[in-house]
């Protein structure tokens, strides 16, 4: 297998995504902000994904706690379990898990919706009337994902900590106040802020990648399916890539 076989095509798509990002940015600043539509999209996207993010995060928190306990017990370090789980969840696992769920749920939804608008000529209908499809279709969705995904991540973190607490009390009873005290005792702003900051980048990217795949959809139902699939794959891959960059930047500015 030649690893570089699809590279020119991928580079071309990346270039197209960058151009799309710049055009969308221009559309955002040139058009009158449609705050009502931003809020509507934010509500739709957030409402649709909250349950899935919360349940997934809860399970991850619970499993992480149950799996880590025996190893920590070997060293007599069970006391540190809430703190270890909290730092893992808030710094890394929570944002990435929530972003991956959103890439699947929100990214695919945006990709499919925009692609079906493209193949049914709805985007052309806007352009031909002098209405910017970027400003009316892309900008509200991208603004919504950029603002909503960080909120979903924070709610997901809370659900994961709840899962962790349930994991703790399955083994031995523990006061919730004590759990929270121990969970947050080693958490610093340098843990929290970069983790929250990268979720904005996840949100921006997921919305943008979904809309871009939809905009580039080929004609016909197969084009919609392909665009949806691409939106998910691009979203998941991009989340990992952004995370890699964010972790290295965090280490550079805040230390590891």
């Amino acid at each position, binding site marked *: 297998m030649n690893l570089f076989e699809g590279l020119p095509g991928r580079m071309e798509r990346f270039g197209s995504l960058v151009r799309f990002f710049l055009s969308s940015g221009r559309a955002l600043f040139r058009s009158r902000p449609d705050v009502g539509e931003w809020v509507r999209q934010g509500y739709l996207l957030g409402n649709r994904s909250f349950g899935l993010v919360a349940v997934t995060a809860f399970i991850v928190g619970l499993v992480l706690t149950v799996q880590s306990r025996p190893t920590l017990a070997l060293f007599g370090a069970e006391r540190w379990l809430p703190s270890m789980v909290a730092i893992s969840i808030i710094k890394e696992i929570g944002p990435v898990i929530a972003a991956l769920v959103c890439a699947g749920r929100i990214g695919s939804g945006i990709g499919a919706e925009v692609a079906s608008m493209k193949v049914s000529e709805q985007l052309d*209908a806007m352009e*031909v009337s*002098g209405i*910017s499809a970027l400003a009316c279709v892309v900008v509200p969705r991208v603004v919504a994902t950029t603002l909503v995904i960080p909120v979903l991540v924070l709610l997901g973190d809370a659900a994961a900590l709840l899962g962790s607490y349930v994991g703790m009390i399955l083994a031995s009873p523990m006061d919730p106040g004590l759990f929270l005290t121990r969970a947050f005792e080693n958490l610093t702003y340098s843990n929290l802020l970069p983790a929250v900051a990268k979720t904005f980048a996840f949100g921006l990217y997921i919305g943008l990648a979904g809309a871009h795949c939809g905009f580039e959809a080929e004609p016909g139902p197969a084009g919609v399916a392909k665009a949806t699939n691409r939106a998910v794959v691009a979203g998941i891959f991009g989340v990992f890539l952004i995370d890699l960059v964010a972790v290295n930047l965090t280490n550079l500015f805040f230390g590891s």
Partner: protein
Amino acid sequence: MAAPVPVLQMIDGTRRFGGRAVLDHMALSLRQGETLVILGRSGAGKTVLLKCLVGLMQLDEGSVLIQGLDLGTADPDSLNLIRRKLGFLFQGAAIYDSLSVRGNLEFQIRKQLRIRDAAQVEILVRQVLLDVGLEEAYGRMPAELSGGMRKRLGLARALVSEPDLMLYDEPTTGLDPVTSQEISHLIRATQKGRGVASIVVTHDLHCARATADRIVVIGDGACRAEGTYAQLEASPDEAVNAFFR
């Protein structure tokens, strides 16, 4: 006295796909208040021609001028200004599926005409629905509309901006003969009532007869014949005459 500037003009337009010229040095001109019908077989490049005429597709060579403005060299703001006075009925109507009938029109009024006053929007919505005979569908969703109603809604959406130029892509395709006739009459009424210059791309002869002031037959990427319905019907050119049998 100088001749009036055509509302729309294509000069030497060429558009290729994979080396094949779908439009080959095409020349076309539309006068104020005129309805020009473009007839051609399936795959003759009618839709490509229409999309090139409004700048949804770029020509490889040649130019398109709308009210004297060259679409190929116009800056985006001028292009948008021109497009705001242009109506386009797509073959599939291109209705915004997530919005109701009213929502489709309201969106167009707010975004295209930049009208924000709710009362004024409501008056315009009601008026244009009345014009196309779609008052009873006011609150319905596009999924609940028949093919003919979708076309009417597409037409209403195009007319709401009171365009100077209307373009129709296969307006009667997929409709029953009665509805086709109604749509053709609506096109004619729009042209007569509002004095809108129109281009109708079709392969439906009944539609062509009902709407045309002038007909252009295209084939092999170029104009093969031009004239009134009666002139072309009597054409000695076998390829042109074949349309009218």
